[in-house]
């Protein structure tokens, strides 16, 4: 009997021991789960605390004390490094053609810098930027001569360009400016595509080193996929910068409140030379607006220039225009020449270029 009781006691003890072991295991499991979840919550809390409170410059910080970081960040674009200029040009060439036949003049000037096939190949998408700044007939000399533009388009087409885009962003109604200046008809007839600006076509462009337009809205759409850029600008007197030619022509690609740049007109033109390095420029000296620019309005302010200049150096082309087309040789060049030259963006001493001058019919 005693033995039986002892056996029962032993069994009870064993069961109790087993239960104790089970309870300990359960408690351990609960503690582990608790610690695990506590760890997760603590980690999340610490992470969120860091992201919220760490100074904005620290990695992964989301702190936004002035709300600036919360603003949407538009994409900033860059033009190709070195622009659209050909490499290994060496001393800038300057092709000058005098005469009255526009087609011959454009071809002659471009032949003077090596011919169109040197600059445009069959794979190229070419952007041509005339000056269509005002809603005036071309004969008043405030816009690029449409005949010069058409001749240029035909040449570029002849070189086999895949696509030719003609574009500008006048402050006045673009449709009206393109129509009235004759640029629209000339471009379409010659086989180019016209791209007129709309608000959605502007993107921020970064121009490292620029004083005024480090990051500025730019008429971007025509440049999507473009491989070559050619500027073709008239020779105009200008009320503020004294002369508007191929370098000033890029002003028409800026968006935003660009008129504010008139307060430092030479600085902004120097920036423009930095912003866009074209494949080459064509200075349209077929007519010269020598007075009352840039708006003009009177035929007596315009004289025949009978000259087209081509160059890879817009400063050289413009300096030639200043001396020989505007007839201001001996007068000090406008300030933007010096500023752009100081940035090594060209050489206003055009006589130092490889000048090839021809007289045509």
């Amino acid at each position, binding site marked *: 009997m005693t033995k039986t009781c002892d056996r029962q006691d032993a069994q009870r003890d064993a069961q109790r021991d087993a239960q104790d072991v089970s309870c300990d295991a359960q408690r351990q499991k609960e503690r582990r789960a608790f610690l695990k979840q506590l760890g997760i919550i603590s980690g999340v809390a610490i992470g969120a605390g860091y992201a919220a409170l760490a100074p904005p410059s620290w990695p992964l910080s989301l702190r936004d004390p002035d709300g600036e970081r919360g603003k949407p960040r538009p994409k900033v674009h860059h033009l190709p490094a070195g622009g659209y200029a050909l490499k290994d040009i060496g001393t800038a060439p300057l092709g000058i053609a005098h005469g009255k036949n526009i087609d011959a003049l454009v071809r002659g000037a471009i032949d003077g810098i090596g011919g169109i096939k040197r600059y445009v190949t069959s794979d190229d998408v070419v952007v041509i930027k005339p000056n269509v700044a005002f809603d005036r007939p071309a*004969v008043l000399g405030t816009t690029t001569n449409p005949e010069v533009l058409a001749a240029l388009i035909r040449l570029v087409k002849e070189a086999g360009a895949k696509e030719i885009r003609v574009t500008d962003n006048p402050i006045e109604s673009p449709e009206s400016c393109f129509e009235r200046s004759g640029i629209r008809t000339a471009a379409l007839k010659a086989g180019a595509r016209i791209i007129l600006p709309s608000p959605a076509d502007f993107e921020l462009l970064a121009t490292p080193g620029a004083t005024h337009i480090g990051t500025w809205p730019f008429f971007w759409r025509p440049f999507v996929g473009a491989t070559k850029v050619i500027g073709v600008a008239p020779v105009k007197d200008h009320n503020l910068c004294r002369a508007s030619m191929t370098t000033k022509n890029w002003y028409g690609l800026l968006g935003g409140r660009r008129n504010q740049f008139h307060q430092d007109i030479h600085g902004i033109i120097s920036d423009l030379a930095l912003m866009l390095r074209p494949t080459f420029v064509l200075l349209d000296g077929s007519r010269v607006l020598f007075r009352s620019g840039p708006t003009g309005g009177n035929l007596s*302010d315009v004289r025949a220039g009978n000259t087209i200049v081509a160059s890879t150096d817009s400063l050289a082309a413009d300096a030639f225009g200043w001396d020989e087309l505007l007839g201001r040789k001996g007068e000090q060049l406008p300030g933007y020449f010096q500023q752009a030259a100081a940035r090594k963006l060209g050489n206003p001493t055009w006589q130092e270029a490889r000048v090839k001058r021809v007289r045509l019919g």
Partner: protein
Amino acid sequence: MARAPKRYNPDQLFNPDGFRHYRRAYSHAELRWGLSILLGLIAILSWVLYRGARPDPALFAALTPMARNPPKIPTSTANGVFPKDLTPPGWRAGVITSFDTKDVYKKINGRESYYKSFGFQRLDCVRLSQRSSSATIDLELFDQEQPQNALGAYAGERGEGQVDRVTPGGVARVVRNALYLVRGRYYLRAVGSDESAATLTALKHIEARFVGAKGAAKGPGQTLPWGYTLLAKVGIGAGAVTYERENAFSFEFAKDVYAGRLGKDGPQLFVMAAASPEAAKTLAAQFHKSFSSYGDAVGKQAPGWVKDHFIGAFSTASAIKRFVVGVRAAPKLAPAQKLLVQLEQALPAENTDDEDM
């Protein structure tokens, strides 16, 4: 196959099925509150829709007049600040667009500062188109605040050899394809797209309408500014007079200067009014000093004349009462001295207000 029920895990801290409710029933009070809130939201939505469909007219008061009243496109006549019956027969007028000091750059970007330097206030533009051809005339009417400003802007755009005509209350010239006209404080540029006979006839029509406009006749342009009258007395017609609001002859101190040249290469006479006789003396001394910076004094008699180092021409300035009169770039000294005397004698009485001269 039926889905096995999720096993209840008493250790789970977060509810894995957050959208599931576990209550079997709701009280009537909760139901009533819920319905009340729903009805309230529906009422707010209805109010928003109702008000949205019936906006308060006062909300639109701040919009520009053009937005409220789109401009009518006149078919036979221009309107607004332009005279009635301006549109020549056979032409039609487009929409008038207006610009003020803040947005004039949109129309004449790059040249707006020129007009602003002459007190620009407002620009109204309208295009006239010939019905039978593509010829156009762009009218640009500048409000320059003061007649002398309008005349100054006008004179600054005069090319060499261009001849002006004096019209009642102003001056005008037609140069090839364009008419330039000043009447009172308004400066009109009418730019033709060509110089055809039709365009020139239309320009004449426009000039006649502006000169004969009743509104302008009552305005300040009925008489030319005093400087024009004064210089006319020494033989310089109003068409040859220029007005420099500031920086005359590139001298920073020279403001509100009327000047005119006698003949193509003759001497230039000038006059300006100072605030007082003392101020006039100071200004005359400044002119003399500036002339001397590129010339040598001639003789010892007052007023001192200066002979230019480079072109050999003679210049001087003297103060008479509260006026400064002078001669610039005179080829010969003796005739220039006589002209200066004539100009001094032509000056009005001391108590005359320069606005009334």
